[in-house]
């Protein structure tokens, strides 16, 4: 009946050409752009940081795969899990977003954490931060930052023990920001830019991060609005409050946050104006926390708070 001799044409919605970009592309672009920073951290902090990155990203992928298999596939057969994994159309773990979350989470951890910390953090990030909302595209908060905020609140001791770089004589030390906060001691800008300071795995080297960011800009995976408005606001606002502006721009996780976390497409506003507001808001909150708050670093919380505000920004500025 269906097979007629007549040549049936295919009909679908009009645009017949695409620029070939898919969600996979976006996600793998981010992964590629994170490689320089990862390599640098392995060089500086040793193999330990490689292990943390590996554990974190693997846990992310496995968590997402298993949870999607259990709760998101429509007809899941307990007897043949692998078959239903392959057959199901609802499983989107292959799009690489879980890998990005795992990587970014590992980047925000200190290199000294015990190996179970990234596991717990990633499970929380993927399960509560992302899949509870229905998966990629629906989450309100950046999963990686959520995981980090969770870990920081749960195990503050582990999360604030830092490893010195290989060039230093001591083993544990403080990050430039906490040195600034506690002793008022400024770290030389050049050390901050190269990455010869202690800090989280991925956040130390500004050069490596900017290298990756340049790739993202070239691929148009991210737009300039959020990073530029974020960094400019931090710079200007810290000048206004009489703080060392260059130090605040290059220290801590600001570069990592501005280029990789705040630009997470799902959790930021989708109009250019909205993105600029988002960046400015995050910048102001970051500096406020760094100046007046109890924590030395405010990027994580600033972005999370702005994530909560993003739906409102979208509502107003579209």
């Amino acid at each position, binding site marked *: 009946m269906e097979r007629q001799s007549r040549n049936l044409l295919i009909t679908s919605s009009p645009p017949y050409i695409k620029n070939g970009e898919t969600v996979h592309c976006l996600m793998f672009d981010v992964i590629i752009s994170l490689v320089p920073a990862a390599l640098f951290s392995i060089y500086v902090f040793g193999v330990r940081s490689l292990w943390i990155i590996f554990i974190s990203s693997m846990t992310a992928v496995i968590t997402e795969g298993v949870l999607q298999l259990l709760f998101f596939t429509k007809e899941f057969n307990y007897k043949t899990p692998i078959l239903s994994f392959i057959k199901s159309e609802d499983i989107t773990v292959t799009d690489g977003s879980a890998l990005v979350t795992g990587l970014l989470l590992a980047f925000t951890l200190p290199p000294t954490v015990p190996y179970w910390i990234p596991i717990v953090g990633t499970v929380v990030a993927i399960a509560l*931060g992302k899949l509870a909302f229905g998966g990629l595209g629906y989450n309100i908060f950046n999963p990686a930052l959520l995981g980090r905020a969770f870990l920081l609140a749960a195990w503050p001791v582990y999360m604030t023990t830092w490893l010195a770089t290989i060039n230093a004589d001591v083993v544990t030390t403080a990050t430039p920001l906490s040195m600034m906060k506690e002793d008022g001691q400024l770290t030389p800008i050049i050390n901050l830019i190269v990455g010869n300071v202690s800090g989280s795995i991925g956040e130390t080297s500004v050069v490596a991060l900017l290298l990756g960011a340049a790739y993202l800009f070239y691929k148009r995976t991210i737009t300039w609005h959020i990073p530029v408005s974020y960094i400019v606001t931090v710079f200007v606002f810290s000048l206004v409050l009489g703080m060392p502006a260059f130090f605040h721009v290059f220290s801590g996780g600001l570069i990592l946050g501005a280029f990789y976390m705040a630009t997470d497409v799902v959790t930021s506003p989708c109009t250019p104006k909205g993105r600029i507001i988002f960046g400015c808001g995050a910048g102001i909150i970051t500096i406020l*926390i760094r100046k007046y708050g109890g924590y030395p670093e405010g990027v994580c919380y600033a972005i*999370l708070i702005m994530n909560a505000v993003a739906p409102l920004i979208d509502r107003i500025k579209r």
Partner: protein
Amino acid sequence: MEKANLLAIFIAVMITNNVILSQFLGLCAYFGVSDSLRSAFSMGITVTFVIVIASAVSWFLDYYLLIPYHMEFLKTIVFILVIATLVQLIEMFIAKNIPLLQRMLGIYLPLVTTNCAVLGITLVNSNEGFNFIESLVNGLGAGLGYMLAICLMAGIRGRLMFAKVPRAMQGMPINFLIGAMMALAFFGFQGFLIK
């Protein structure tokens, strides 16, 4: 000095110890009324209004009636009476004089009576021994903090309307998780302004 103290109270109750996210006051309405931005905003305004007035009235009662006669244990009863009466009064007043506002706030006003934020803040005012101005500032900060949290929640829930939230998570569970995440985000303000 005086001003800095007031600012500290204001910031503390509005952001650092947000009335919803850290003190768990007024959660029923927070989850119940945050389904649309409009109603959330109305609720926020109503709560702010009622808290400020209730703070003022209860301060007078506390300071001039209960404390002189050492009747502090009657605080709860007296305050809740005051609040219930106040809400009723405001409702009637609005219904008569400002019908537009009535249409906006109508269904939320009765909800405010059983909102623990109002009673909680008046009790805190009394327990902390705030003076009149401090009570007012505390009430205003609490109300604005309430409004902030509920508006953010409404925005998020407006977006969630399009999300494919898993069935077991739909409704209350996901709302609680959002609450958790907002509380986590507001953690960043811990130790704010305290030197």
